[in-house]
């Protein structure tokens, strides 16, 4: 009886296996570990699974033996014992219990203890610190020390909506690709600080053996020492709203030299971006950049056409706020104005001042005021945004 079921189960698994040979390494177990922590986790996991499998087979074996032999239609006469009656029997029922104690707290307990200690050892001998901030629905990375100190950028999902809504062929990295991957050097112990701007997210890279919650208002930490260069992918793992399935983590692990080079070029890029904040921008340039920024950051909620998803996400097309003034007569930012909403956020609407730079904010605000049928005609200069900081 039960055997039959197992045949069926085997068939199902075989079917799965057969169709998945292409991704063989992904099928049966954790993906290939690339940090000491992940290595350790894999060992512990394998060991525990094996133990459980053995227990399962033993229990199942006894049961199947009994099912086959102790049957009414074979004329088996039932015994009527209700518990161990002799001292010897009591002893033999206690043996498995003792065995299980041993399994739980020695065989499994001790390796588990060591991996917990390793996992939580985040500060000792750390070579560098990065800060990861989760927000709906993107990750922000900030390098806190070392060569890359001061670099700060946001990492967004790159997969286009057309792929998600089946209007285009899905790429090989479907849902696991970002515009700005975080870059880390190999062989260095990276201390990873985590926090969040809105709700709880979990930063997870399976091949690092690392998953830790990013909790708004709190700092959490974990660590990774990547042994091999490569691109490692993970996802946000705590339900964080409608975009939860769409906030991947992509890490580029590179050699130390390459890391230094990357840091230089990234810094130059960021400096250039802040330099242009000083200059006077033309409306066309602002509109073009604004559209780009809008579609990358805002369209998840307010939709590409600015119609929103009322009542949760208000339309920007025809919005009173968008079609209202930003500054009062003295040139001070008006509370609850368009720029105030974008800069400081409100309830579910994120605050963008920490995420977008001055040019981007100026551009997206300008864009919103002159798109989706809004026709304010005015434009916002990056310098005006900069003055608010």
């Amino acid at each position, binding site marked *: 009886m039960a055997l039959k079921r197992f045949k069926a189960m085997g068939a199902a698994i075989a079917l799965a296996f057969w169709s998945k040979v292409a991704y063989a390494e992904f099928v049966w177990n954790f993906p290939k570990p690339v940090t000491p922590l992940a290595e350790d986790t894999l060992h512990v996991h394998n060991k525990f699974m094996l133990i459980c499998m053995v227990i399962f087979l033993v229990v199942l074996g006894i049961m199947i033996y009994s099912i086959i032999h102790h049957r009414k239609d074979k004329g088996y006469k039932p015994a009527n014992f209700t518990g161990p009656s002799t001292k010897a029997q009591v002893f033999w029922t206690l043996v498995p219990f003792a065995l299980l104690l041993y399994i739980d707290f020695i065989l499994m307990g001790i390796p588990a203890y060591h991996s917990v200690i390793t996992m939580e050892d985040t500060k000792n001998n750390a070579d560098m*610190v990065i*800060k990861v901030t989760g927000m709906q629905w993107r990750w922000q990375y900030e390098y*806190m020390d070392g060569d890359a100190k001061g670099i700060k950028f946001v990492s967004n999902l790159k997969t286009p909506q057309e792929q998600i809504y089946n209007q285009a062929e899905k790429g090989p990295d479907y849902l696991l690709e970002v515009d700005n991957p975080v870059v880390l050097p190999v062989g260095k112990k990276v201390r990873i*600080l985590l*926090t969040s*701007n*809105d709700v709880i997210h979990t930063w997870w890279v399976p091949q690092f053996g690392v998953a830790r919650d990013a909790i*708004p*208002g*709190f*700092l959490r930490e974990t660590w990774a020492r990547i042994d091999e260069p490569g691109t490692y992918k993970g996802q946000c793992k705590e339900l964080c709203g409608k975009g939860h399935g769409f906030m991947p983590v992509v890490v580029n692990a590179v050699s130390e030299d390459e890391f230094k080079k990357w840091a230089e070029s990234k810094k130059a890029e960021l400096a250039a971006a802040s330099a242009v904040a000083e200059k006077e921008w033309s409306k066309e340039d602002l509109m073009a950049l604004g559209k780009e920024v809008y579609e990358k950051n805002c369209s998840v909620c307010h939709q590409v056409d600015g119609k929103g998803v009322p009542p949760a996400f208000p339309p920007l097309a025809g919005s009173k706020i968008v079609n209202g003034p930003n500054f009062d007569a003295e040139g001070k930012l008006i509370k609850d104005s368009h720029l105030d909403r974008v800069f*400081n*956020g*409100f*309830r*579910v*609407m*994120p*605050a963008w001042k920490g995420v977008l730079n001055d040019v981007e904010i100026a551009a997206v605000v300008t864009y919103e005021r002159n798109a989706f049928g809004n026709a304010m005609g005015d434009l916002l200069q990056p310098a005006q945004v900069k003055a608010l900081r």
Partner: protein
Amino acid sequence: MATEASHYYVPNPSLYPFILSVGLLLMAAGFIFNINHYAVGLWMLLLGFLCVLYVLFGWFGSIIDESESGKYKAWEDRSFRIGMIVFISSEVAFFAAFFGALFYMRNISVPELASFDPNFTMYKDFLGTWPTAGPGGMVLGMEYKPPQFTPMAAWGIPALNTLILLSSGATVTWAHWGLLKDNRRQLVIGLFLTIALGILFLGLQAYEYHHAYTEMGLTLGTGAYGATFFMLTGFHGFHVTLGTIMLIVILLRSMKGHFRPDHHFAFEGVAWYWHFVDVVWLLLFVLVYWL
């Protein structure tokens, strides 16, 4: 016992439970609509409340009638007693949740906020001492600046209230002695005093709340301290209110001549409830006001 079996009183079919559920559904939905600014909410709330009120009178009325017409004997009585004990246990668990929240915030989250790695903390000058309104910050797009407030001192009204509730525990016990001796006068006076003390307590509590809101800058929104303070004392006050109402019913019934020295579960149930409310207050006094 075998002969008693046929006599366990199984009440006749009754529509009250159903109406009560409908009433609660209306109240819940009404409340939700109300706090989300839909106008129907208030009306649904009101309608639901009327249903509940109707059932309270009807259901308890029939229980009182059944009790007075002698349908409840020792066996049924035992059911009520066990049931009441279990019910009060569930209330204890309810308060435990809020005490747990107090413990957690005070001993875990507030100190933790103050103890992040000094290189990276976002709360540079937050000390993490209790009482606190929190370190402040942006949350879900709303700026929260912790207000200035004066914490509630233990040795003014709260101490007086402790005294009041403790004496009310004594008076209700005294009333019980009266009932056991079949001394109706003592019963009624004892109950009356208990109710008066209960109302006095509530009055002082209301005064304290008013004071907190208007002069001490202490509100429900005053961070961890305000939230735990008002939720704990508020739910306690709500239970005192219920207890007082129940005591009033018992008083009225006593005046009508209900209860006998050997048969007065309703009285005892309410008295237990009152003692439970007392004990919760003692915990509150020590953990919320004093320490």
